[in-house]
C-alpha cells in the first residue's frame, strides 16, 4: 500500500528550511512534476482565468440542466452592490458568496469550470481567492502560488481520506475545497506554514460529517448553495488561524477523522440520492417530476 502523505511533515520541513509554505510547495511540486516554476505557475494562472470566466457565465443568470438552480449569484451581486450597507457579512464575504453561487450555477448549466477538487465543489476555492484578491489587491501570480498551496493540501486529503462525495460525503468535496481555500487564504495573508495547517484543521473540524444528499442525484440542490457556506467556513477558519488560534487536534489527525467519519457514513448519504434532502418530500417530488420527463426510451 502506498504510504500516506502528511501535511504536518511538509509543514515541519518548510519551517526547518525557513520557507513560506507557498515557496516550499512550489519547489516540491517543481521536482515532483519535473517542470519548471514558470510552467507550474503558468498552468495555475490558466486555471484562474477559467475560474474568472466561470463567474461571468454564472452571472448571466442561466438555468441549470435540471432546472433547480440559477440566477442566485446574480441576486447576491445585485444586493451587495445596490445596498452595501445592508450586507450582514460585509463586502468581502458577500463577494465570496456571489462567486461561489455563480460558479456553482455555471457548473450546473454545463458551463466550463475548473474542478477544485471536484466539479460539485468548484465554487468554493475561487470564491475565497477572488474575494480576498479584490480586498487586498493580490496579483495573479500571488493567487497562482496560493493555488499550488491549495492543491498540495488537496493531495494530502486525497491520500489520507477522499475528495469524492461517493466515498466520503460532502465533507470530502465542499469540506476539502474549503480546507484548501483556508490554507490558500492563510498563505495569501502572510501566515506561516503552521498557520496554514491550522487553517486546514479548523475548517475540516467545522465541516466534519457533512453528507452528500443531492436531490434527484443532480449537482444542483444543495450543492450550489453549499459552496457559499463552504467559502464562509474557509474564511472563518483562516481568520482564526491568522489570529494564532490552534486546533487542539493536529491537522493529519483531523483528516484521518474525516476519513473515519466518511467510512462510518451510511451509503444513503454518499451521493446515492437515497438519504437526507434527496428523500425529503419535496426532494422526492422533484425527482419524480424530473425522471418522468427524462426516462429514456426503451430499446
Amino acid at each position: 500500500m502506498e504510504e500516506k502523505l502528511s501535511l504536518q511533515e511538509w509543514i515541519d520541513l518548510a519551517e526547518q528550511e525557513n520557507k513560506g509554505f507557498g515557496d516550499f510547495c512550489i519547489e516540491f511540486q517543481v521536482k515532483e512534476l519535473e517542470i519548471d516554476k514558470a510552467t507550474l505557475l503558468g498552468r495555475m494562472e490558466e486555471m484562474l482565468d477559467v475560474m474568472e470566466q466561470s463567474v461571468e457565465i454564472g452571472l448571466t443568470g442561466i438555468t441549470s440542466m435540471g432546472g433547480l438552480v440559477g440566477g442566485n449569484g446574480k441576486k447576491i451581486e445585485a444586493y451587495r452592490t445596490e445596498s452595501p450597507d445592508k450586507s450582514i457579512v460585509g463586502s468581502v464575504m458577500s463577494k465570496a458568496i456571489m462567486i461561489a453561487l455563480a460558479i456553482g450555477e455555471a457548473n450546473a448549466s454545463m458551463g466550463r469550470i475548473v474542478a477544485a477538487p471536484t466539479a460539485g465543489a468548484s465554487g468554493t476555492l475561487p470564491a475565497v481567492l477572488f474575494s480576498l484578491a479584490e480586498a487586498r489587491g493580490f496579483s495573479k501570480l500571488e493567487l497562482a502560488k496560493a493555488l499550488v498551496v491549495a492543491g498540495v493540501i488537496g493531495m494530502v486529503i486525497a491520500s489520507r481520506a477522499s475528495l469524492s462525495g461517493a466515498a466520503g460525503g460532502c465533507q470530502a468535496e465542499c469540506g476539502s475545497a474549503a480546507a484548501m481555500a483556508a490554507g490558500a487564504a492563510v498563505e495569501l495573508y502572510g501566515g506561516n506554514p503552521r498557520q496554514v495547517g491550522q487553517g486546514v484543521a479548523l475548517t475540516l473540524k467545522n465541516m466534519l460529517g457533512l453528507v452528500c444528499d443531492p436531490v434527484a442525484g443532480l449537482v444542483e440542490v444543495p450543492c450550489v448553495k453549499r459552496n457559499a457556506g463552504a467559502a464562509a467556513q474557509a474564511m472563518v477558519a483562516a481568520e482564526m488561524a491568522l489570529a494564532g488560534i490552534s486546533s487542539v487536534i493536529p491537522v493529519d489527525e483531523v483528516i484521518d477523522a474525516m476519513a473515519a467519519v466518511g467510512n462510518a457514513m451510511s451509503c444513503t448519504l454518499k451521493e446515492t440520492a437515497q438519504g437526507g434532502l434527496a428523500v425529503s418530500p419535496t426532494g422526492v417530488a422533484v425527482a419524480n417530476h424530473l425522471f418522468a420527463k427524462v426516462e429514456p426510451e426503451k430499446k
Partner: protein
Amino acid sequence: MNIFDVIGPIMIGPSSSHTAGAVRLGNLALAILGEAVKEAVIGLHGSFAQTYRGHGTDLALAAGLQGWATDDTRIPKSLELAKEAGIVISFSTVNLGDLAHPNSVRFWLTGANGNTCAVTGTSVGGGRVVVTNIDDFPVEFSGDFPAILTMHRDRPGAIALVTSILSTQGVNVAQMKVFRKQKGGLAAMIVETDQPIDDAAFEVIGKLPHIQAVRRIQLI
C-alpha cells in the same frame, strides 16, 4: 495523483463522473473503433440511465465519440452537431448486471469504413474511467497511459513480437494484460506504455503475423 488532478481538470460541468468521465469514455470507445463513428447505439446502465439528462451524460458521450476534450464548449450542443455531421446516435437503458458499477455504459459502434466494435466502460469518479469489455473480451484499462490494443491469434510468439517492436522503439511497457476465450483462439492484449507509440511502430505491429487488428490509444 498529481496536483493537477486536484486543481483541475478544466471541464464542462456539472459532474466529473457523469459528464467529464462520460466524455473520456466516448474518447476511448472512439479510439478502440479506430475510425470516425458513423452510427452509435449507446446503452446506459444504473445511475447513468437514471440521471443522464440532468448531468448531460448523453451530450458528453456524444462529444467523446466525436473526439472532443472534456472542456470543449461545444459539448452542450454535441447531439445537434453530430446530427449535422450525419452521425446517428441513439440511447437506451441496459442492465449490465448487479455487479456492474452504477456509472456504466455500453457502446455499439459502426465506423465510417464499416468497422464495428462493442465497448463497455465505467466512470469510476473524479473523471477517471475504466474500459471493462471490448467485443466480449473482459479487459481493464484506464486511458491514463498511451496504449495499444491487439486482437490476435493465440499462438506462441504473438505477444513477444509486439513487445520486441516496442523495445526497439524505446517504448517501455508499464502494464500489460492478455485475454483469451479459448486456447489457440482469438485473444486480446492491452499494452499500456510510458512513451507514446509512434506511427512507424504502430504500422509495423499491424503487419505482424497473428495480429488481426491493432488499435492505438493516445493520452486523453
